[in-house]
């Protein structure tokens, strides 16, 4: 059974991801917006939306968005789609996923540090030259030589997505706010 609070929570999440992403890439800027419009319509009982469109769009964003904000947002939205169409309720899986998302991204999004106003640096002393960051950087902004030279971030290309910060296992990526 859905409680009113659950629905509120879900709707707040949908609005959050639609309004707080950085707006740089198409799949998240317009894709999450469209998905949020579809889901809000269904939740409000306004429209009978094709489930397939929502699922396809969600899966594409999950794989194809530029950074982890959009990818993870789509992941949670897929659980919400599942809650709406299959389970017919928003259970704890959904609520936990929403909270996990918030704990990773809410501060960054609200303070506007996704997409702008921060700089990332790799501490050459801490860098183990493993290339993890450069393989994950969606902007191709990190270069270095695996096992030989510490990795470096080209500030002109960096899109401030926090990916390197999350994937580095050695805490070598520093953030300057």
């Amino acid at each position: 059974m859905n409680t009113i609070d659950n629905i509120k929570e879900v709707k707040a999440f949908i609005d959050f991801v639609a309004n707080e992403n950085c707006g740089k890439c198409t799949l998240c800027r317009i894709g999450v917006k469209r998905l949020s419009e579809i889901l809000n319509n269904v939740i409000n009982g306004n429209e009978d939306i094709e489930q397939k469109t929502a699922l396809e769009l969600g899966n594409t964003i999950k794989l194809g968005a530029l950074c982890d904000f959009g990818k993870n947002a789509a992941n949670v939205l897929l659980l919400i789609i599942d809650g709406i169409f299959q389970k017919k309720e928003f259970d704890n899986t959904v609520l936990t996923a929403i909270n996990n998302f918030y704990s990773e991204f809410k501060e960054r999004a609200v303070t506007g540090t996704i997409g702008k106003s921060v700089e990332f640096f790799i501490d050459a002393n801490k860098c183990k030259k493993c290339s993890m960051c450069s393989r994950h950087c969606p902007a191709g902004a990190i270069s270095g030589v695996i096992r030989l030279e510490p990795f470096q971030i080209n500030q002109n290309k960096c899109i401030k997505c926090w990916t390197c910060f999350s994937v580095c296992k050695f805490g070598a990526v520093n953030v300057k706010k």
Partner: protein
Amino acid sequence: MKDTVNIKINGIPYEVEKNLTILEASRICGYDIPILCHWDHDYCAVGSCRVCLVGIKEGNNTRLVSSCSTTIFDGIDIDLLSPLVLRARKTSVELLLSNHSKECQQCPKNGNCELLNVAKIVGADENKFSGKTQDRVIDISNGITRDSSKCVLCGRCVEVCNKQQGIGVLSFKNKAFENVVSPTKDLLKDSGCIFCGQCVLACPTGALMENSSIKLVDEAFEKKKKVIVQVAPAIRAAIAEAFEQKIGVLGAGKMFSALKKLGFYRVFDTNFGADLTITEEAEELVERIKNKKVLPQITSCCPAWINYMERFYADLIPNISSCKSPHQMEGAIIKSYFAQKHNLMPDDIFVVSVMPCTAKKDEIKRKENKTADFVDVDAVLTTREIIFMIKRAGINWSLLPDGEPDNDLIGEYSGAGAIFGVSGGVMEAALRTAYFKLVKKEADILFFKDVRGLQCVREATINIGEKDIKVAVVSGIKNAVPLLQDVRNKKSPYTFIEIMACPGGCINGGGQPYVKECFFLDKNVRNTYIEKRSSILYNVDEKKKIRQSHNNEDIKKLYNDFLIKPCSELSHKLLHTTYSKKDKFSQ
């Protein structure tokens, strides 16, 4: 270390150079990938449009990445073909279309639109998604029109205006769905835009276009005015591209025939105006050198540079040549000398300039350029607009014979005038004449070849008579900044500086045909087109018997019959102008 890596594309192994992006490697191996936001490599490569998505197979999983911004590595297994990849690209385009005012039928970009092109390639359904759309702002300035509802937020214009031109008019604003690319103060004219049009060349859609003047020209015909057209040197280097799909073909002959078929009263060549400019500008230079007046002299024929100077370097006004640009001079002569000889009133004449330039549309509205009681030029069409008019009239380019411009008081031109369209051309042309005036004999043509070249900043030392003078040629407005700082601080070693706002000069002007990789078979086209276009103009020069402006017979006649001598009182009234300090953020 090995310089190649082994990669797989759709399961097929290839060996390619390392450090390439997936996009570059795929093209080498014979696969094209649709792109939208990607532009010149030094500028944008963040992969924000998500149209160039490809898969990287990792075990049973496929990771989607943007191919323009991801570098290949040894053993990479690239997937360009699976339904997952194809659907992702299609979805990106469909999402963009859901937030786009789709008016292709009436959109001047149709035919050169990269959004439409990728939509076709990925097979997008324009109505797949719908919902809220971005607010529509239509900003019509003197040079450029911006329609925000056609913007796909690729950021090319932002990069070009900031990094290539160093001006910074455009930026991203707001986050999420509200994100927009817009001038810092909402309207171009309030944001320090110099109308160079380089952003227009970069824009994939109809969001940034020249402010069209075709209607004005149509109306002039309708009002039975004597509509006289003049064509800038740079047009012939590019116009054929629109009809022959290749770069490097001289279009002069067919172009003049086409213009005559369009019904213009006279078809003139701005090369004549260029010769006139040189005669005046070289005289000015000689006078500055002889009388130890303010040096370096800086050229004034690029109106975007003049806009920049008036906003950011107005203290250098004494250094700027007071000469109007060639088409303004030619317009003034048409409405005075030509009109008098033909018993016409300036008001009966409507002068149309076909220019490679968006800034010239703004230039003709400068109040400083108003000569006596008439405006020199009534309308400026870009190369793209005249191409539209030729196509609209149904003129078959391939059947056109080679024609000549009219020769009626205004006609003859020298090789010096012809090279005005390329960066370094004005310098070279002016030096040929200045040398003659100072040394009293002709210099060898190759004497000044050091000012030619493709680098954006070039300098040369020229021996004129007893002394050496240093000159510099700059194209791409940002590259002028260090030189201008030196002039400002009175440290400049130069006697004469040429500045063109567009990299490569007018042959790469904001009104020229688009050079978009997606429409050419040769994907290397963006690295070579400037060179190809400039060699066309140098060839025109080489084939000319008369290579110096001061040897142009029609120019001599114009001075004998009318202007008396270079920099005379009448020529100052008709051919020279003034400048004033302008507020950085307004026109």
